């Protein structure tokens, strides 16, 4: 593997860029591994990377039915932040943000983490109170948060609608300056390269079709490229967690839903941070290429379809127009949908499964991308030690039975409303 540096760039340029090696090995499956991770998205690759780096477990395979970066990792709106307030979520997402801050250096791969800041807008006195409360909880946990007034926002983000006729007047908002965006594909590629370099086999185009059993214990997987044995099998297949769990005889507190995202034509820079609307579910940022990247609500009915319907396009664009009036002059050039594991309390599940030998990492709802590094970090710990890391000890499956749901939004078990 070529170490990426200014020097290597210069050297390869002199050689006509013909000397670059593959970023990761295209491995063929071995008969057995210590750990198999199902799913070569960001979470699965990060898990393999930290299994090797933090725990010295390198006899690992990541098995991906498609190609690296072709699933939800490449279908999100690339936002990273840590403005959570429920104990169990707060420090997990803050650890994740800290890992984002050092990721490019750690992986020797530019993931284009851009701490451009994120604002959650407030449109009523009650929302300002809620923002202040959230900000206080964050600050007491050592996380940066700043309550901004309408006047602050007018100076900082002039493009929003501050007029008297605004449908939802902006009163202020909660600002996190270390939040921002990262290049989603680069995260998958960076972790794949780092894991492969430490001995992990990354096997693409190989679908797991079932599990291998021995006396009630899972001892490997059946795939489209044959049987592969493993001491431990971890799933990291958010969007298909229910589907893969069912093959192991498990039912989960998860429904699968589709979430759409939208990109406009490229324009000059107008929004230099991430803005979340407080009146309806909608958020917007601008990519480095210039397109406005937007997202909002789920389509709202169970689906594995990876494509969205038109009413949500209309709803999203109405929200965009209400918040940033200039979008009415822009063309939408792309919209797509990703498949979400919507858990019953809006928080993830990461633990040993009730089946010996199988581990679950799913239920990320819309929040999986920002969680990528901490998810890998904690899942690797859980698999290596057969016990959760302190940061994911509340993401258990039995919290629903025990009444310890982590319901950040207070919605109850209506997963399409989280």
């Amino acid at each position, binding site marked *: 593997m070529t170490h990426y540096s200014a020097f290597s760039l210069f050297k390869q340029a002199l050689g006509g860029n013909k000397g670059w090696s593959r970023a990761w090995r295209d491995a063929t499956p071995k008969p057995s591994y210590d750990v198999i991770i199902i799913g070569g998205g960001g979470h699965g690759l990060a898990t393999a990377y930290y299994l090797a780096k933090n725990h010295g477990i390198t006899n690992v395979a990541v098995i991906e039915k498609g190609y690296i970066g072709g699933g939800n990792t490449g279908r999100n709106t690339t936002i990273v932040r840590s403005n959570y307030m429920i104990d169990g979520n707060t420090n997990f997402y803050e650890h994740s943000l800290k890992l984002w801050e050092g990721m490019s250096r750690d992986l020797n791969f530019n993931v284009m983490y851009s701490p451009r800041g994120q604002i959650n807008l407030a449109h009523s006195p009650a929302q300002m109170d809620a923002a202040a409360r959230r900000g206080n909880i964050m600050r007491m946990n050592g996380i940066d948060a700043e309550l901004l007034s309408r006047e602050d926002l007018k100076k900082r983000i002039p493009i929003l609608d501050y007029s008297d006729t605004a449908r939802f007047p902006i009163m202020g908002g909660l600002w996190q300056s270390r939040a921002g965006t990262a290049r989603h594909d680069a995260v998958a590629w960076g972790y794949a390269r780092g894991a492969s370099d430490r001995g992990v086999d990354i096997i693409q185009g190989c679908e797991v079709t079932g599990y291998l059993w021995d006396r009630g214990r899972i001892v490997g997987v059946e795939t489209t490229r044959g049987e592969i044995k493993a001491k431990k099998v971890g799933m990291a297949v958010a969007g298909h967690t229910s589907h893969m769990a069912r093959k192991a005889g498990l039912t989960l507190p998860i429904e699968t839903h589709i979430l759409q995202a939208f990109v406009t034509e490229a324009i000059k820079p107008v929004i230099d941070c991430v803005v979340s609307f407080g009146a309806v579910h909608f958020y917007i940022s601008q990519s480095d290429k210039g397109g406005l990247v937007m997202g909002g609500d789920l389509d709202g*009915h169970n689906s594995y*379809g990876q494509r969205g319907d038109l009413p949500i396009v209309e709803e999203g664009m109405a929200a965009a127009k209400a918040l940033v009036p200039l979008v009415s002059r822009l063309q939408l050039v792309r919209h797509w949908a990703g498949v979400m594991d919507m858990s019953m309390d809006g928080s993830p599940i990461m633990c040993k499964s009730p089946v010996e030998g199988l581990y679950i990492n799913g239920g990320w709802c819309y929040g999986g991308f920002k969680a990528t590094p901490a998810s890998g970090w904690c899942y690797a710990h859980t698999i290596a030690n057969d016990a959760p890391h302190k940061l994911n000890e509340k993401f258990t499956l039995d919290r629903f*039975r025990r009444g310890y749901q982590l319901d950040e939004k207070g919605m109850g*078990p209506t997963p399409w409303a989280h």
Partner: protein
Amino acid sequence: MLRIACPYCGERDYIEFLYAGDAAREMPALSDTDIDRWTDFVFFRDDPKGEHAEYWQHQHGCRQWLKVIRDTVTHRVISVTPAIEAGLQADEDKVEVA
């Protein structure tokens, strides 16, 4: 656009309907105190990739509750029946009120 053929009003866009989720679950009797059966009912879902039984209410039409079988991959609606005919009985489990 996903379209649902309401047995009372005819085929309409899905935005006229309120989605109310999985219709395959069975609510335990209100007198049942078993925590596992209630946990299963409240939180756990089969979440099939394929045919899914679900409730929709024709909120902007006849306001009737419907049981719809729909494919969660193709979004094809396979059948629509009035929930009352499909066996949804709110008053089946009578509770003694002191």
